[in-house]
């Protein structure tokens, strides 16, 4: 089977510094493949190299080393562009065109003609939720509306692979929801989606697989649950009606005890605290369980940890 996206040792250096330009490695030998029909979340903090990767895949940048293929063809192949869609980060289109005119222009470039153009354009505009505004010049569009136009142009040609760079950025909660539904719709149609984000919840809701990029390096990839390991860090327990006799015992069991209003207490328990047994014991002795929640590692924790580790390693490298 032909892979939707393949990158092999993809590397990009930028020259930084005006007087004495030095190479700055924005992407470091990225090797990655995405199968047809997958929704792949490309995660990483700001500046990790996500946009750089997408631009390399779109041949808006030329790699310093390595190569990439889309649908089995080298990137930049005009035939492949017929079959893909791309939404750039914070996109801009022409101020002087209306949404309809912009999409009709792109539709012509895709080779559609006549009535096909009109029906396609109005269909994708409906799909992204742009109504009467489609007759207005883009100059008057808000950031969120431009983002929708961007999605519309990425879907214009019923693409087999869609590349979206931070598709949720600049959208209000309703807009985010809408984009999520759109991506889920694409997934159902069997379209491959490759999108970048620095927000975990986006990825959680949509992805079949994720890759995590930190400082230009792919530090892990796989199913979301595998990658982030979702390590249980402990439990958060809220109880009420704790008798005075019980208090010292709880203080011994929990990492911390914080009393708050109406005789409620917030307890932080270790991961291996076996809460079932504890809960049984507590209820038997007259306490009332209000809530119990697992505390898991978040993407944020993960970033902090991995970035910290990468920076530490680099510093050792410099010292050596």
């Amino acid at each position, binding site marked *: 089977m032909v892979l939707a996206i393949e990158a092999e040792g993809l590397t990009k250096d930028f020259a930084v510094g005006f007087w004495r330009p030095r190479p700055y490695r924005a992407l470091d030998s990225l090797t990655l493949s995405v199968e047809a029909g997958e929704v792949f979340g490309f995660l990483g903090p700001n500046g990790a190299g996500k946009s750089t990767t997408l631009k390399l895949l779109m041949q808006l940048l030329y790699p310093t080393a390595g190569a990439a293929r889309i649908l089995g063809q080298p990137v930049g192949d005009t035939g492949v562009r017929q079959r893909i869609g791309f939404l750039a980060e914070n996109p801009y289109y022409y101020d002087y*065109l209306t949404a309809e005119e912009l999409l009709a222009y792109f539709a012509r*470039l895709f080779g559609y003609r006549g009535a096909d153009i009109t029906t396609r354009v109005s269909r994708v505009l409906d799909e992204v939720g742009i109504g009467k505004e489609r007759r207005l010049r883009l100059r008057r569009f808000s950031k969120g509306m431009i983002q929708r136009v961007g999605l519309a142009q990425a879907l214009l040609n019923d693409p087999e692979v869609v590349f979206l760079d931070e598709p949720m950025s600049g959208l209000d909660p309703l807009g985010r929801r809408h984009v999520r539904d759109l991506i889920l719709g694409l997934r159902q149609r069997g379209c491959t989606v490759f999108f970048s984000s620095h927000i975990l919840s986006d990825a959680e809701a949509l992805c079949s697989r994720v890759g995590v990029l930190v400082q230009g390096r792919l530090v892990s990839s796989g199913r979301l649950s595998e990658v982030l390991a979702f390590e249980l860090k402990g439990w958060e327990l809220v109880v009420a009606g704790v008798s005075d006799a019980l208090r010292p015992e709880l203080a011994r069991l929990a990492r911390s005890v914080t009393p708050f209003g109406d005789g409620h207490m917030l307890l932080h328990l270790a991961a291996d605290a076996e809460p079932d047994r504890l809960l049984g014991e507590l209820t038997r002795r007259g306490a009332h369980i209000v809530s119990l929640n697992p505390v898991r590692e978040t993407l944020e924790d993960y970033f902090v940890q991995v970035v910290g580790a990468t920076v530490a390693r680099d510093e050792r490298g410099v010292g050596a």
Partner: protein
Amino acid sequence: MRAIWFVAGAAFKESVRDRVPYTMVVFAVMMIAASYLISELTAGQDLKIIKDLGLAAMSIFGLVIAVFIGIGLVSKEVERKSVFALLTKPITRPQFILGKYLGLLVTLVVNLSVMTVAYYLVLFYMETTATATMRASWAAPALDPRQLIAIVLIMGELALVTAVALLFSTFSSPLLAALLTLGLWVAGHFNHDLRQFEQVVDSRAVAALARGLYYLLPNLAPFNVRAEVVYGIPVAASHVGLTLLYAAAYVAALLVAAIAIFRRRDFK
């Protein structure tokens, strides 16, 4: 190939919807009106002044459009990043450059045509209101169709300058590209002086440099036949033909260079 036309169409639409060309046309019309006013003040004696001013205005306004819109067409796309969406469509970078060039050429032709019509309308008015004695003093008839030769050559020069602007805008910032283009335009008009310069200097190295520049820089002097036309001096068909051929060759070389640079370029 169709892609080139689509890009050209969009570029034309952009420059027409930008208010700049309208103000240019209005300005040109005002210039011509002003020159008419001058003739009133000089009791109809100076058809020459009107022709001079009118043709010079066309050339200058055409230059401004060619430089500023010409540079904007490519560098604005790159700077504002609209190029990201466009270049990920089934279109090659050479097609993009050629389409932009063609679109601007169409814009210039339309603008120059509008200015020509306005120009001839003023001359038509002169013709109908002139007395026999005034006519006798004219070096050439008011509605002399040979003025179109000067206008065609202005267009040839603008086609060349546009290609220069496009080339610079593929690799430098808009401001720098504008300055470089205007600099080259000025140099192009004084280029033939380099020839004489070569003969008056002693240093062989400087002479060689002057000769090199002479051949490298565009030679724009032959495009200016305004004085000949105004004074009714004939312009040889071969001069027009060769000059236009020179423009075409120069434009082709510039476009090849622009494409070569644009092709390898990173869009950050």
